[in-house]
């Protein structure tokens, strides 16, 4: 193997021990007889291995879990999430795909809304028909009301007459 190929392996698989025993043996043999590659390998170790080798593994500060716990306990579940979760669960029970269930619900709510609208319209139509009749009845009652004053109109007119 050429030095260029060996040095590429020294930077990667050989250094990280991601190499077969056989390949390692080939590279070790080359290193034993090649000063340039030996120096190259030393430079790799000094620059990219030793300084990082004993980098400290820190404990996660306790404030992290405290904050995570607060956020997940007080997480606000939006109405949309609630509705979505309910649809998914309901759909799973009916073995319906969620989009089909969603469409079904839209149709159901639309029909309900239409029924409510129509009954409200009918009530208003009835009311509209009945109101003029009631008004006319009240007018007729006024016109045909019995005059208890003997045809003389009001009490004052009766006094003077």
């Amino acid at each position, binding site marked *: 193997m050429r030095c260029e190929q060996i040095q590429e392996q020294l*930077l990667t698989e050989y250094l990280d021990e991601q190499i077969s025993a056989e390949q390692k043996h080939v590279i070790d043999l080359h290193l034993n007889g090649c000063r340039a590659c030996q120096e190259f390998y030393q430079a790799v170790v000094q620059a990219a291995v*030793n*300084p990082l080798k004993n980098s*400290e*593994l820190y404990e*996660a500060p306790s404030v*992290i879990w405290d904050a*995570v716990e607060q956020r997940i306990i007080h997480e606000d579940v939006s109405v949309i999430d609630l509705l979505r979760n309910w649809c998914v669960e309901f759909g799973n029970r009916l073995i319906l795909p969620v989009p089909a269930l969603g469409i079904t619900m839209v149709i159901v709510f639309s029909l309900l809304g239409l029924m409510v609208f129509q009954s409200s319209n009918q009530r208003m139509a009835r009311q509209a028909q009945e109101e003029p009749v009631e008004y006319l009845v009240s007018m007729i009652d006024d016109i045909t009301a019995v005059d208890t004053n003997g045809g003389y109109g009001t009490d004052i007119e009766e006094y003077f007459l």
Partner: protein
Amino acid sequence: MIDVSHTLIEKAVQKDVQAFQEIYELTGKYVYNIVLRIVNNAHDAQEVTQDVFVAIYKKLDQFNYQSKFTTWAYRIAVNSAINFAKRRTRTTGGHVSLSRQAIQYADVSSEPELTREERESTVQRLFNQLPEEQRACMVLRTVDQLSYEEIADVLGINMNTVRSRLKRAREKLMQYRKEVIGHEV
């Protein structure tokens, strides 16, 4: 790579906070250190790690057991950390508040002479030389000792790309060392 049991995950999916806390206790330290080395700042790392675990909690029902749980969790952590680091680079021009200590290189034989602060300062400065994608590969290799295959799974890339990023990262660190040693002479 540590493993999280199926039973624990299922409990946490049902919003059992205690079960999720157990998951946090198993994985939190590793996630925090991965995030710390990618964002290269302790305060930012706390914030990002919080966001990562809240995201994991919310997305638990999407975990489909096709990979290890830690692979999936690390993926969320690395993506969040890389996105944070890139956003910070766009807003601050890449400035990261690092220790004032100069970088210290030491031979293996003299390593014990470096103080904790010197070692930490060196690690920070070295990782800061690398673009985020190369940094992520180096972090997963050095912090959690993941294999190339595991790194590829976490990052959603192929093994050749892992190999290529590690190679370029190490070449960059070698060049940086030459520059540092050159200035000291």
